[in-house]
């Protein structure tokens, strides 16, 4: 009895710093201090952009890693939020643009993204494995062409331009530093939510459903409802990324949500690793850096080949991405530290 009481006491005495873990603290400090050393370009085009695509990868990681549902439609969900911001807020394309303030437009955009995601989930949860990939790819492609050829709502190939991040609390969130911190804040929030959610009852149930849906059904769980709810949560994260993306680009067009972009998100998640929510962010940094600078390394003709080869090498060396790579290197490092010094 005394033991049963002592255990929660000991847990409570565990300092919150310990709970957070040294890795998280170092990472957080580094990310917060990053603007001190980075140029504006590295702050937004690399930092902010990686965080945005990391969030997109995170929403895929939530579905694929915990729910076993690989989706190619996360960029579509983000695009729905982005288009919603363009349509409900201000744009300079002379089409729609209701001029709502950001605090009204953003919740609506997130709601639209979450509902759309839940709908995509509801359509695709009856399938498994490659069939889910095919259905979500079909939805992503259909949405791309729908946006491309619908002029009344989406303004066709040109899309919407002239969208600006808002200025509030006397901060212009479009400036590089505030925008980076905005991305960082929302990314950390999403990351923490996924990490917390994965250990919650719902998260555990979802992982159990991933491992054995038949048994969970037999135990009385509503498998479809759990999966669709996971889609809804992933939709909120992808929607947040979509809002940031449209503020970052200042514009949204079918090119933003094309199949290329959908595959980029998948690559980011796979390169990074699907076992832990940090994976997609690592993947995003690698992919964005490659896409930005490969052209400087090998010139304009062959740079996509180089990008492809680097990705192949990563997946070849470590099938579970950069996270897996770390898992493989760590024991070696530890062993080395055990060796006697010279």
């Amino acid at each position, binding site marked *: 009895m005394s033991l049963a009481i002592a255990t929660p006491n000991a847990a409570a005495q565990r300092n919150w710093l310990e709970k957070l873990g*040294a890795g998280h603290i170092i990472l957080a400090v580094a990310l917060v201090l990053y603007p001190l050393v980075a140029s504006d*370009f590295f702050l937004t*085009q690399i930092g902010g952009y990686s965080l945005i695509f990391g969030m997109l990868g995170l929403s895929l990681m939530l579905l694929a890693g915990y729910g076993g549902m690989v989706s190619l439609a996360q960029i579509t969900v983000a695009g729905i939020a982005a288009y919603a911001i363009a349509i409900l807020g201000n744009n300079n394309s002379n089409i729609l643009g209701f001029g709502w303030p950001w605090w009204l437009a953003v919740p609506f955009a997130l709601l639209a993204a979450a509902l759309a995601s839940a709908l995509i989930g509801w359509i695709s949860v009856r399938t498994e494995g490659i069939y889910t990939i095919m259905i979500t790819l079909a939805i992503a492609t259909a949405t791309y062409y729908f946006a491309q050829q619908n002029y009344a709502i989406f303004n066709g190939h*040109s899309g919407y331009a002239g969208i600006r991040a808002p200025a509030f609390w006397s901060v212009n969130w479009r400036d590089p530093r505030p925008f980076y911190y905005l991305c960082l804040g929302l990314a950390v929030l999403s990351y923490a939510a996924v990490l917390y959610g994965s250990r919650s009852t719902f998260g555990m149930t979802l992982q159990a459903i991933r491992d054995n849906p038949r048994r969970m059904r037999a135990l009385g769980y509503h498998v479809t409802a759990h999966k669709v709810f996971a889609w809804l949560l992933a939709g909120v994260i992808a929607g947040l990324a979509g809002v940031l993306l449209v503020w970052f680009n200042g*514009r949204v067009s079918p090119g933003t949500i094309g199949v290329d972009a959908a595959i980029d998100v998948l690559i980011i998640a796979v390169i990074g690793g699907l076992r832990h929510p940090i994976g997609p962010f690592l993947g995003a*940094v690698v992919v964005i850096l490659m896409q930005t600078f490969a052209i400087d390394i090998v010139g304009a003709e062959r*740079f996509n080949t180089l990008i492809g080869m680097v990705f192949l090498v990563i997946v070849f060396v470590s099938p579970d991405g950069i996270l897996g790579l770390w898992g493989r290197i760590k024991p070696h490092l530890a062993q080395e530290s055990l060796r006697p010094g010279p």
Partner: protein
Amino acid sequence: MRMHRRTVLALAVFTGLTAPSMALAADDTIKIGLLATFEGPFTVLGEDSERGAMTAVEEVGGKVAGKKIEIVKGSSDASPDSAVRAARKLVEQDGVKVLVGPLSGDEGLAVKDYAKTQPNVTFINGTSAAQDTTLRNPAENFFRFSTDGAQWMAGLGTYAFKDKGYKKVATVAEDYSFPYTQVFGFMAEFCKAGGHVPSKSWVPIGNKDFSSVIAAIPEGVDAIYVALGGADAVNFLTQYQQSGGTAPLIGGSITVDQTVLTSKGKLKDVLKGTPSAGPTADTNDAPAWKAFVEAYKKQPGAFPSPSLFAHGYYVDMKATLLGLDQVGGDVSDGGKKLRDALSKLSFDTPTGKVSLDKNRNAIADIFLTEVTEGADGNLLNKLVKVVPQVNQTLGIPEDEFMKLGAVNRDNPSCP
């Protein structure tokens, strides 16, 4: 110890990320950004545009005002987002003060918008040819020495109606701002001459299956006006021929460009005799053009004759170099002197004199052409007529021209 190693690793990663290639340009070099499409459906076009730009750079021996020219390349995939992203990288990371590009219509509109946020950088167009890049709401620091898509059509509508005798023409064009501009330029003249356009088909870029488009072309049209680029043009023309279509064609500027004419396959019979118009003509006899073709052919992988993308990037790069030469390569004042010089610039290109109007859009000669087979079996654009010094309002007084309205899918219309 493990903790320590982890810290070191994290630090190493971050210094790696944050120590960008900040090598500042030495005083004896000038950095020029070159933005073109090296990915996506217009890759072939982008590669030829690079040849054109490099022809201009090599013409001056890689030096301007005694300084070495350093070309920094950026790539887009013809979508406006990617063009802005590439432009941002060139301007904000590589620190170019002069940027030449982009290649296609909507990219130009997007880069113009971006130009407004970078008043100290001078943007010179590549070949992007949407009308509103310069006509409506222009940017002070965006210049176009390569004319727009409506200008390129000068003379074609009248020629098709009067000389060819086409009264009813259907159009098939890609669904974005540049083909809108081309159709506008063609129809402005064709409708005025008394012609009718009963159907307009707009197809997405990168379309592979044109069967529904071909089926929708009405019976009994005298000709089909086609404004498709690169792979899209080849796909449409092949499928049109395979489906037994026989109506003669009228070509948009990039439809009968060298990027399409040199493609393999049975297109020869379909394309022969197709009238078109554009900023270049392959059989131009002018010595300046011939010299340009020779210089262009020294570039690796060159076509038998430069495409209009090679020509456009050449003209814009040449204007850039002339402007830089006039100010002694000095852009330390945020490019103000350079922009003054560029605004007043008037020079002879391989295709005649070019000068700018008040919106910084080019006034230049346009060539009416017809596709023929050259002596060596290659398809060529034979020069039919030169329309001298076409301005952006196609010779119509400006206020009257503005009343025609902004170019879009429905404007103009003469069913």
